[in-house]
């Protein structure tokens, strides 16, 4: 009984650690810096992609989109002679409804997990997306088909199937916290922490691993491959941060999460933006967000361009 009580922190301890709680995030941060009218820019991945390309952010190429049920049968035409692609809902969140086809030959589709499915299942999936199964509030949605990312080899040992990504929290245009999310067997190849993926906090100046967390518990090794998580050092770190900084310019959202994947050939690419990024990143970094945000509020200059902001963060002296 006493042990159980001990597993709770006191509110004072958390506030000393600068932890940002859900209520405070919603009331003090999101409702202040993220006007609701800006949400459609990030909720619809087609729109996000168009905007990103305009401002010069790299994203996976769009193969095509399907808006209406009767178009779903055109899927094979859209794919043409490609052998790999991803189908995802334009308004999905948390990686829901993403179907990764890594091999398509002779009418047989092989998914990321190695399962083979037929045309009907693909058709079914698209149909589900269109009828709003994965979108917020069950709204009718658009299915987008885009290029498969060939994620960089450096993550190979750290993730079990799926696509590992880097999440950067950007506050007022300044990258504040970052982590990489590594799919595990338990997470079913998905890079979602609440499904059991590993989060590894990254030093915002260097992209080096700080500490790992899985289901809110500290970890140092990837459970499926045994790789040492502390050796992670994300290359092209400046480019990662640039995507985050530019996302602020592009959307105007004062508080956002940018999900970035590292393609082996094309470098860091933005997958999606999130106007309500989760708070688990604090645990992965061992750093409370409140202090980060306060420091940016008080000590970071205003009116800098995106590259200047990134340089400011990179050149910041380590504490």
């Amino acid at each position, binding site marked *: 009984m006493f042990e159980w009580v001990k*597993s*709770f*922190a*006191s*509110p004072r*301890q*958390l*506030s*000393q*650690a600068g*932890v940002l*709680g*859900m*209520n*405070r995030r919603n*009331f*003090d941060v999101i409702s*202040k810096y993220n006007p609701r009218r800006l949400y459609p820019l990030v909720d619809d991945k087609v729109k996000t992609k168009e905007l990103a390309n305009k401002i010069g952010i790299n994203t996976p190429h769009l193969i095509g989109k399907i808006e209406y049920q009767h178009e779903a049968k055109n899927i094979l035409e859209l794919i043409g002679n490609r052998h790999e692609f991803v189908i995802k809902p334009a308004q999905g969140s948390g990686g*829901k409804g993403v179907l990764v086809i890594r091999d398509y030959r002779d009418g047989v589709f092989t998914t990321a997990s190695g399962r083979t499915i037929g045309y*009907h*299942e693909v058709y*079914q999936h698209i*149909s*589900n997306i269109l*009828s*709003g*199964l994965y979108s917020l509030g069950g709204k009718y949605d658009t299915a987008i088909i885009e290029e498969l990312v060939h994620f960089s080899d450096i993550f190979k040992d750290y993730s079990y199937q799926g696509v590992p990504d880097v999440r950067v929290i950007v506050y007022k245009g300044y990258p504040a916290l970052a982590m990489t999310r590594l799919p595990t067997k338990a997470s*079913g190849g998905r890079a979602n922490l*609440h*499904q*059991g993926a590993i989060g590894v906090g990254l030093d915002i100046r260097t992209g080096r691993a700080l500490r790992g*967390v899985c289901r*809110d*518990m*500290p970890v140092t090794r990837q459970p499926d491959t045994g790789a040492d998580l502390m050796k992670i050092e994300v290359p092209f770190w400046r480019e990662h941060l640039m995507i985050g900084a530019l996302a602020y310019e592009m959307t105007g959202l004062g508080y956002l999460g940018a999900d970035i994947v590292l393609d082996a050939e094309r470098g860091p690419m933005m997958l999606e933006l999130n106007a309500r990024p989760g*708070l688990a990143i*604090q*645990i992965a970094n*061992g*750093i*409370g967000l409140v202090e980060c945000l306060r420091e940016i509020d008080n000590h970071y200059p205003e009116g800098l361009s995106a590259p200047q902001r990134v340089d400011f963060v990179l050149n910041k002296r380590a504490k």
Partner: protein
Amino acid sequence: MLKKLASVRGILSILLLLSIVYAAYGIYYKVSYWGFHFTPRQSANIWTIEAHISFEPTGEPIKVALTTPRSSDAFKILEENVVAEGYKTSKNKEESRLVLTSAPKVDKQDIYYKIMLFDNIDTRGKIKADAPKAPKQPIFDEQRLAAAKQLLQLAQKQDGDAVSQIIRLLNEEPLQPAVQAYLPVKSTQQIMVEIITDLLSLKGIPSRTARGFRLEESKKALSPDLMIEAYIDGLWKIYDIKTGKKGLPDNFVLFQRGGQSLIDVEGGENSVIKFSVLKSITSSMKLAGRRAELFDQQRNFQYSIYNLPLAQQNTLKWLSIFPLAILVIVLMRNVIGLQTMGTFTPMLLAMSLVKTGFWPGLLCFAIIMVLGLSIRFLMSKFNLLLVPRISAVVIFVILIMQFLTVIGYQLEFNIAQSAVFFPIIIMSWIIERASITWEEDGALNACREIVFSLIVAIATYFVISSEYIRHIMFAFNELNLVILFIVMLLGTYTGYRLMELKRFRPLVKS
């Protein structure tokens, strides 16, 4: 940033304070003017007493005086009317007598007097009365005085207090010789009361006659029963003159207290008075209008929800518990931090539980969920489109409910019959959501969502299932305004949620 926050909170706090003051006043007003109770006692006794007076005129001017009940804290006269053609009526307020006068008449006269009384049971035996004058000593000759004193001594061997002792002695079976000698051969209630009064006066206890009616369904025409009231310790206490039992018997309404004759007829003879009594039980809410009339507060009442037809009132009563349920949901989500399926789904579940009863409801919910989820899993193999698939689940849920109800009826197992109270669409959505969460996030997350939803539903259930709380929220609906501002204030709560204290525990610096 902080200033703005403080001002929002400040405004809401002031509004909350105002609403509390308003609610407090509203409660005070309803209790004192409309007679609302804090307890959900549903009924209040209303007595309709009709007196039928008949007599033959003697040819002289007629004057009929009838003692009527006095309005007091214990009695509220709701309606009073007289049917007496050709009579002038007046009321002697001081003596509480109705006086009817008329010129000489020839034919047999019939006068009807009807009164509706509200018997305020709560105040019975609690109202302090001023001490009456010392009782007049009866005028006895020496022999009778000695006999009376002997009786008083004999009485002390009986059970009960002084009054009960005397009454019991006089009603003993068989009577002791001394008592038998003291009592007249043929005794009536009136004579008994007089004897008891005399004996009590000898002991120095003031007493008075009380007339009332014992309600018996079969008897329509009654003559009043007599009881005796004795003044003890500042209160008038009533005794049955046959058994000596203290307190009013059930189904007994007091009509008149104190001396005076019940009826005096001048200019008539062979006067007969017959009473009929009807007891009706009305909700105390219904009575409120009448009470409002008494206090001249009618307009306020007319525009309140308690003046609506009963069916609407019942609907509103059901609705007025919602705000409290919503408050529970807000607390569970924003202060405790439980993630549930849909925001108000747990509340709707709790509402169903109220209708089905707790355990039967939970069992039914479990059966529907298990059957529904298994069917949903089988169905996921068919790869149906979304809308037809959910529709199919809805139909399955309906079929399960039909099945449960029929089986429950045949096995005389009432539990299963409560299945019909669960909202079909909500149940279908829970099944659909659970199965999707199951497929995407794993069984663990799906079960956790269901369990959290149930926890919140059960917590909500315990708040709204209490008859007491339901009554308070309806009778004093101003409280809903208070809840509104509490909920809005919670909307500015930026502290940690209880679950976060555990979740972010690893971040605590040691």
